[in-house]
Protein backbone atom coordinates (compact mmCIF):
# COMPACT_ATOMS: atom_id res chain seq x y z
CA UNK A 1 0.00 0.00 0.00
CA UNK A 2 1.31 3.37 -0.87
CA UNK A 3 2.51 5.82 1.76
CA UNK A 4 0.04 8.31 0.37
CA UNK A 5 -2.83 6.00 1.12
CA UNK A 6 -1.65 5.45 4.70
CA UNK A 7 -1.35 9.21 5.19
CA UNK A 8 -4.86 9.64 3.85
CA UNK A 9 -6.30 7.11 6.28
CA UNK A 10 -4.52 8.76 9.21
CA UNK A 11 -5.84 12.11 8.06
CA UNK A 12 -9.37 10.75 7.93
CA UNK A 13 -9.20 9.67 11.57
CA UNK A 14 -8.11 13.14 12.67
CA UNK A 15 -10.65 14.73 10.41
CA UNK A 16 -13.44 12.65 11.88
CA UNK A 17 -12.57 14.01 15.33
CA UNK A 18 -12.70 17.63 14.22
CA UNK A 19 -15.86 17.12 12.19
CA UNK A 20 -17.55 15.42 15.12
CA UNK A 21 -16.56 18.29 17.40
CA UNK A 22 -18.01 20.83 14.99
CA UNK A 23 -21.22 18.90 14.63
CA UNK A 24 -21.46 18.49 18.39
CA UNK A 25 -21.17 22.25 18.85
CA UNK A 26 -23.87 22.83 16.27
CA UNK A 27 -26.13 20.39 18.06
CA UNK A 28 -25.25 21.46 21.58
CA UNK A 29 -25.26 25.25 21.25
CA UNK A 30 -27.70 25.78 18.42
CA UNK A 31 -30.72 27.94 19.02
CA UNK A 32 -34.38 27.14 18.62
CA UNK A 33 -35.68 27.68 15.12
CA UNK A 34 -32.28 28.38 13.62
CA UNK A 35 -30.48 27.00 10.60
CA UNK A 36 -28.09 24.77 12.48
CA UNK A 37 -29.64 21.56 11.24
CA UNK A 38 -29.73 22.81 7.66
CA UNK A 39 -26.07 23.85 7.73
CA UNK A 40 -25.06 20.60 9.38
CA UNK A 41 -26.95 18.64 6.74
CA UNK A 42 -25.24 20.54 3.93
CA UNK A 43 -21.87 20.02 5.55
CA UNK A 44 -22.43 16.30 6.04
CA UNK A 45 -23.60 15.96 2.44
CA UNK A 46 -20.53 17.75 1.09
CA UNK A 47 -18.04 15.69 3.04
CA UNK A 48 -19.91 12.46 2.26
CA UNK A 49 -19.82 13.18 -1.47
CA UNK A 50 -16.15 14.14 -1.24
CA UNK A 51 -15.30 10.96 0.60
CA UNK A 52 -17.31 8.77 -1.79
CA UNK A 53 -15.61 10.41 -4.78
CA UNK A 54 -12.19 9.93 -3.25
CA UNK A 55 -12.87 6.28 -2.41
CA UNK A 56 -14.05 5.63 -5.99
CA UNK A 57 -10.90 7.24 -7.37
CA UNK A 58 -8.71 5.37 -4.91
CA UNK A 59 -10.44 2.10 -5.80
CA UNK A 60 -9.68 2.54 -9.47
CA UNK A 61 -6.00 3.10 -8.86
CA UNK A 62 -3.43 0.36 -8.87
CA UNK A 63 -1.70 1.09 -5.57
CA UNK A 64 0.32 -2.07 -5.72
CA UNK A 65 2.31 -0.66 -8.57
CA UNK A 66 3.64 2.00 -6.23
CA UNK A 67 5.46 -0.52 -4.06
CA UNK A 68 9.18 -0.75 -4.74
Amino acid sequence: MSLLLIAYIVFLFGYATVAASALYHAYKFGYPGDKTRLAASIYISVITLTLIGSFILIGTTDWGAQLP
Partner: protein
Amino acid sequence: MIDPEHYFPGQEADERVFLFIRKHPLTMLGEIMAGLFLTLLPVVLLAVISVGGGEPFTEPSRNFTIIALPIYYLILAVWLFILWLLYYLDVGMVTNTRLVDIDQKSLFKRSIAELNLAWVQDVDGNRNGLLETFFDFGDVVVQTAGERTNFIFHSIPHPHEVAQKVLDLQETAMRQQPAPVAKPVHGKSGNQSNKSAQSAERVQLAPEDHSMREVTKHSTPPQADTSGRQPKQGRQQNAGVPVPPEETTPSRPSPTQAQPTAPPAAPSASETPTSSAAAGRPPEKKSSQTTSEQDIPHEPERR
Protein backbone atom coordinates in the same frame (compact mmCIF):
# COMPACT_ATOMS: atom_id res chain seq x y z
CA MET B 1 -29.01 20.12 22.84
CA ILE B 2 -31.36 22.52 21.14
CA ASP B 3 -34.11 23.36 23.59
CA PRO B 4 -37.04 25.36 22.22
CA GLU B 5 -37.66 26.90 25.63
CA HIS B 6 -34.18 28.02 26.61
CA TYR B 7 -31.89 30.20 24.57
CA PHE B 8 -28.94 30.37 26.93
CA PRO B 9 -27.75 28.63 30.09
CA GLY B 10 -29.16 30.16 33.22
CA GLN B 11 -32.29 31.47 31.60
CA GLU B 12 -35.03 31.70 34.17
CA ALA B 13 -38.44 30.20 33.69
CA ASP B 14 -40.24 33.52 33.48
CA GLU B 15 -37.55 35.24 31.46
CA ARG B 16 -38.60 36.27 27.97
CA VAL B 17 -36.17 36.95 25.15
CA PHE B 18 -37.22 40.17 23.43
CA LEU B 19 -34.27 40.68 21.11
CA PHE B 20 -32.15 37.99 19.55
CA ILE B 21 -29.19 39.70 17.95
CA ARG B 22 -26.71 38.25 15.53
CA LYS B 23 -24.02 40.00 13.52
CA HIS B 24 -24.94 41.27 10.09
CA PRO B 25 -24.19 38.69 7.36
CA LEU B 26 -21.98 41.22 5.60
CA THR B 27 -19.46 40.84 8.40
CA MET B 28 -18.84 37.41 6.89
CA LEU B 29 -18.08 38.91 3.49
CA GLY B 30 -14.33 38.33 3.79
CA GLU B 31 -14.79 34.71 4.79
CA ILE B 32 -17.30 34.12 1.98
CA MET B 33 -14.94 35.57 -0.61
CA ALA B 34 -12.04 33.56 0.79
CA GLY B 35 -14.15 30.40 0.66
CA LEU B 36 -15.11 30.97 -2.95
CA PHE B 37 -11.53 31.71 -3.91
CA LEU B 38 -10.19 28.64 -2.14
CA THR B 39 -12.90 26.45 -3.67
CA LEU B 40 -11.97 27.49 -7.18
CA LEU B 41 -8.21 27.58 -6.61
CA PRO B 42 -7.45 23.86 -7.24
CA VAL B 43 -9.62 23.83 -10.37
CA VAL B 44 -7.75 26.82 -11.77
CA LEU B 45 -4.39 25.38 -10.76
CA LEU B 46 -5.09 22.00 -12.36
CA ALA B 47 -6.30 23.74 -15.52
CA VAL B 48 -3.17 25.86 -15.67
CA ILE B 49 -0.97 22.81 -15.12
CA SER B 50 -2.81 20.89 -17.86
CA VAL B 51 -2.56 23.78 -20.29
CA GLY B 52 1.11 24.17 -19.44
CA GLY B 53 1.84 20.61 -20.49
CA GLY B 54 1.57 18.90 -17.12
CA GLU B 55 -0.44 15.74 -16.60
CA PRO B 56 -1.94 15.83 -13.10
CA PHE B 57 -4.37 13.00 -13.82
CA THR B 58 -1.98 10.53 -15.38
CA GLU B 59 0.61 8.32 -13.77
CA PRO B 60 2.60 8.99 -11.65
CA SER B 61 1.02 12.33 -10.62
CA ARG B 62 -2.44 10.85 -10.53
CA ASN B 63 -1.97 9.08 -7.19
CA PHE B 64 -0.89 12.30 -5.50
CA THR B 65 -3.73 14.27 -7.06
CA ILE B 66 -6.49 11.91 -6.01
CA ILE B 67 -5.23 11.98 -2.41
CA ALA B 68 -4.43 15.68 -2.17
CA LEU B 69 -7.67 16.92 -3.69
CA PRO B 70 -10.03 15.22 -1.18
CA ILE B 71 -7.83 16.27 1.72
CA TYR B 72 -7.89 19.86 0.50
CA TYR B 73 -11.64 19.97 0.06
CA LEU B 74 -12.38 18.19 3.33
CA ILE B 75 -10.24 20.71 5.23
CA LEU B 76 -11.92 23.54 3.34
CA ALA B 77 -15.38 22.18 4.16
CA VAL B 78 -14.74 21.85 7.87
CA TRP B 79 -13.08 25.28 7.97
CA LEU B 80 -16.08 26.90 6.35
CA PHE B 81 -18.44 25.02 8.63
CA ILE B 82 -16.55 26.14 11.73
CA LEU B 83 -16.51 29.73 10.45
CA TRP B 84 -20.24 29.55 9.99
CA LEU B 85 -20.63 28.09 13.48
CA LEU B 86 -18.58 30.90 15.02
CA TYR B 87 -20.76 33.42 13.23
CA TYR B 88 -24.00 31.70 14.05
CA LEU B 89 -23.35 30.91 17.70
CA ASP B 90 -22.05 34.41 18.46
CA VAL B 91 -25.26 36.08 19.55
CA GLY B 92 -26.62 38.70 21.86
CA MET B 93 -29.95 38.65 23.61
CA VAL B 94 -32.04 41.18 25.45
CA THR B 95 -34.51 39.71 27.88
CA ASN B 96 -36.91 41.41 30.23
CA THR B 97 -34.29 41.37 32.97
CA ARG B 98 -30.84 41.40 31.40
CA LEU B 99 -28.55 41.59 28.42
CA VAL B 100 -26.70 38.45 27.43
CA ASP B 101 -23.72 38.37 25.10
CA ILE B 102 -22.55 34.95 24.00
CA ASP B 103 -19.14 35.03 22.35
CA GLN B 104 -18.15 31.99 20.38
CA LYS B 105 -14.50 32.88 19.91
CA SER B 106 -13.39 29.48 18.67
CA LEU B 107 -14.73 25.97 18.61
CA PHE B 108 -13.59 25.35 22.18
CA LYS B 109 -13.78 28.87 23.54
CA ARG B 110 -17.17 30.23 24.46
CA SER B 111 -17.96 32.91 26.97
CA ILE B 112 -21.24 34.33 28.21
CA ALA B 113 -21.45 37.82 29.66
CA GLU B 114 -24.58 39.10 31.34
CA LEU B 115 -25.68 42.53 32.42
CA ASN B 116 -28.73 43.32 34.47
CA LEU B 117 -30.90 45.95 32.88
CA ALA B 118 -30.73 47.85 36.16
CA TRP B 119 -27.08 48.53 35.44
CA VAL B 120 -27.74 50.12 32.08
CA GLN B 121 -27.15 53.85 32.10
CA ASP B 122 -27.09 54.72 28.43
CA VAL B 123 -27.23 52.96 25.09
CA ASP B 124 -25.64 54.23 21.89
CA GLY B 125 -26.05 52.93 18.37
CA ASN B 126 -23.13 53.64 16.03
CA ARG B 127 -22.67 53.16 12.32
CA ASN B 128 -19.16 53.75 11.07
CA GLY B 129 -18.23 53.44 7.45
CA LEU B 130 -19.80 53.17 4.04
CA LEU B 131 -21.02 49.57 4.24
CA GLU B 132 -22.50 50.05 7.69
CA THR B 133 -24.33 53.17 6.60
CA PHE B 134 -25.73 51.65 3.42
CA PHE B 135 -26.76 48.37 4.96
CA ASP B 136 -27.74 49.76 8.36
CA PHE B 137 -25.59 47.82 10.75
CA GLY B 138 -23.12 48.83 13.43
CA ASP B 139 -22.22 48.65 17.08
CA VAL B 140 -24.47 49.11 20.05
CA VAL B 141 -22.61 50.31 23.12
CA VAL B 142 -24.37 49.83 26.42
CA GLN B 143 -22.84 52.06 29.04
CA THR B 144 -23.01 50.59 32.50
CA ALA B 145 -23.18 52.07 35.93
CA GLY B 146 -20.12 52.14 38.09
CA GLU B 147 -16.70 51.15 36.87
CA ARG B 148 -17.83 48.18 34.88
CA THR B 149 -16.79 47.71 31.34
CA ASN B 150 -19.27 48.69 28.69
CA PHE B 151 -21.35 46.09 26.99
CA ILE B 152 -20.89 46.13 23.22
CA PHE B 153 -22.80 44.31 20.52
CA HIS B 154 -20.62 44.41 17.42
CA SER B 155 -21.87 44.85 13.85
CA ILE B 156 -25.51 44.10 14.48
CA PRO B 157 -28.32 45.12 12.11
CA HIS B 158 -30.36 48.24 12.89
CA PRO B 159 -28.24 49.49 15.79
CA HIS B 160 -30.36 52.55 16.53
CA GLU B 161 -33.56 50.56 16.75
CA VAL B 162 -31.87 48.03 19.00
CA ALA B 163 -30.53 50.78 21.24
CA GLN B 164 -33.99 52.28 21.55
CA LYS B 165 -35.48 48.89 22.29
CA VAL B 166 -32.92 48.25 25.02
CA LEU B 167 -33.73 51.60 26.59
CA ASP B 168 -37.44 50.87 26.45
CA LEU B 169 -36.93 47.47 28.06
CA GLN B 170 -34.72 49.03 30.70
CA GLU B 171 -37.39 51.57 31.59
CA THR B 172 -40.02 48.86 31.69
CA ALA B 173 -37.82 46.71 33.90
CA MET B 174 -37.18 49.62 36.25
CA ARG B 175 -40.89 50.29 36.56
CA GLN B 176 -41.74 46.65 37.19
CA GLN B 177 -38.86 45.96 39.51
CA PRO B 178 -39.96 45.52 43.13
CA ALA B 179 -38.31 47.80 45.63
CA PRO B 180 -36.55 45.58 48.12
CA VAL B 181 -33.58 47.84 47.58
CA ALA B 182 -35.34 50.92 48.83
CA LYS B 183 -36.54 49.66 52.17
CA PRO B 184 -33.29 49.55 54.08
CA VAL B 185 -32.15 52.93 52.79
CA HIS B 186 -35.39 54.81 53.38
CA GLY B 187 -35.73 53.85 56.99
CA LYS B 188 -32.34 55.08 58.13
CA SER B 189 -30.15 58.09 57.85
CA GLY B 190 -26.53 58.85 58.44
CA ASN B 191 -23.35 57.17 57.28
CA GLN B 192 -23.42 54.29 59.69
CA SER B 193 -27.01 53.47 58.96
CA ASN B 194 -26.27 53.73 55.25
CA LYS B 195 -23.56 51.13 55.62
CA SER B 196 -25.85 48.78 57.42
CA ALA B 197 -28.53 49.53 54.85
CA GLN B 198 -26.16 48.64 52.06
CA SER B 199 -25.19 45.40 53.72
CA ALA B 200 -28.83 44.58 54.25
CA GLU B 201 -29.48 45.35 50.61
CA ARG B 202 -26.65 43.07 49.62
CA VAL B 203 -28.14 40.23 51.59
CA GLN B 204 -31.55 40.76 50.12
CA LEU B 205 -30.37 41.05 46.57
CA ALA B 206 -28.07 38.08 46.60
CA PRO B 207 -30.46 35.57 45.02
CA GLU B 208 -31.55 37.94 42.27
CA ASP B 209 -28.34 39.73 41.59
CA HIS B 210 -27.66 39.35 37.87
CA SER B 211 -25.05 42.05 37.62
CA MET B 212 -22.56 41.61 34.82
CA ARG B 213 -20.53 38.51 35.21
CA GLU B 214 -18.54 36.32 32.91
CA VAL B 215 -19.54 32.69 32.80
CA THR B 216 -16.77 30.78 31.16
CA LYS B 217 -16.83 27.38 29.63
CA HIS B 218 -14.09 25.28 28.22
CA SER B 219 -10.70 26.96 28.29
CA THR B 220 -11.67 30.59 28.80
CA PRO B 221 -9.98 32.04 31.87
CA PRO B 222 -12.38 33.72 34.28
CA GLN B 223 -12.26 37.49 34.32
CA ALA B 224 -11.57 39.28 37.54
CA ASP B 225 -14.93 40.97 37.43
CA THR B 226 -16.54 39.51 40.49
CA SER B 227 -15.48 42.36 42.74
CA GLY B 228 -18.43 44.39 41.64
CA ARG B 229 -20.89 42.31 43.59
CA GLN B 230 -21.11 45.07 46.14
CA PRO B 231 -23.91 47.43 45.19
CA LYS B 232 -22.71 50.82 44.07
CA GLN B 233 -24.30 54.17 43.72
CA GLY B 234 -25.24 53.59 40.14
CA ARG B 235 -27.22 50.54 41.06
CA GLN B 236 -29.11 52.47 43.67
CA GLN B 237 -29.69 55.26 41.20
CA ASN B 238 -31.11 52.96 38.63
CA ALA B 239 -33.15 51.17 41.22
CA GLY B 240 -34.94 54.42 41.84
CA VAL B 241 -33.57 54.84 45.33
CA PRO B 242 -32.99 58.41 46.45
CA VAL B 243 -29.43 58.54 47.64
CA PRO B 244 -28.72 60.75 50.65
CA PRO B 245 -26.26 63.58 50.03
CA GLU B 246 -23.70 61.94 52.31
CA GLU B 247 -23.35 59.05 49.91
CA THR B 248 -22.75 61.13 46.83
CA THR B 249 -20.12 63.28 48.50
CA PRO B 250 -16.66 61.92 47.73
CA SER B 251 -15.04 60.48 50.82
CA ARG B 252 -11.67 61.80 49.78
CA PRO B 253 -10.85 65.26 48.50
CA SER B 254 -11.26 65.70 44.79
CA PRO B 255 -8.16 66.25 42.63
CA THR B 256 -9.03 69.93 42.48
CA GLN B 257 -9.07 70.19 46.20
CA ALA B 258 -5.80 68.34 46.57
CA GLN B 259 -3.85 70.69 44.32
CA PRO B 260 -1.47 72.79 46.43
CA THR B 261 -1.35 75.54 43.79
CA ALA B 262 -5.08 75.95 43.68
CA PRO B 263 -6.35 79.51 43.33
CA PRO B 264 -7.80 81.19 46.41
CA ALA B 265 -11.29 80.48 45.14
CA ALA B 266 -10.65 76.75 45.28
CA PRO B 267 -12.85 74.91 47.77
CA SER B 268 -11.37 73.71 51.01
CA ALA B 269 -11.02 70.04 51.90
CA SER B 270 -14.34 69.99 53.69
CA GLU B 271 -16.11 71.88 50.92
CA THR B 272 -18.02 69.86 48.40
CA PRO B 273 -18.01 70.76 44.69
CA THR B 274 -21.70 71.41 44.94
CA SER B 275 -21.11 74.11 47.47
CA SER B 276 -18.49 75.76 45.26
CA ALA B 277 -20.94 75.73 42.39
CA ALA B 278 -23.57 77.21 44.63
CA ALA B 279 -21.19 80.02 45.60
CA GLY B 280 -21.21 81.21 42.02
CA ARG B 281 -17.64 80.40 41.22
CA PRO B 282 -16.97 78.93 37.80
CA PRO B 283 -16.30 75.27 38.43
CA GLU B 284 -13.14 73.74 37.12
CA LYS B 285 -13.32 70.76 34.79
CA LYS B 286 -12.80 68.06 37.38
CA SER B 287 -15.12 69.61 39.91
CA SER B 288 -17.78 69.95 37.23
CA GLN B 289 -17.42 66.25 36.55
CA THR B 290 -17.99 65.57 40.20
CA THR B 291 -21.02 67.80 40.15
CA SER B 292 -22.46 66.00 37.17
CA GLU B 293 -21.94 62.72 38.94
CA GLN B 294 -23.91 64.06 41.83
CA ASP B 295 -26.67 65.06 39.50
CA ILE B 296 -27.06 61.55 38.18
CA PRO B 297 -29.19 60.24 41.08
CA HIS B 298 -31.97 62.59 40.09
CA GLU B 299 -32.31 61.12 36.63
CA PRO B 300 -34.33 58.06 37.63
CA GLU B 301 -36.67 60.31 39.52
CA ARG B 302 -37.42 62.18 36.28
CA ARG B 303 -38.24 58.89 34.67
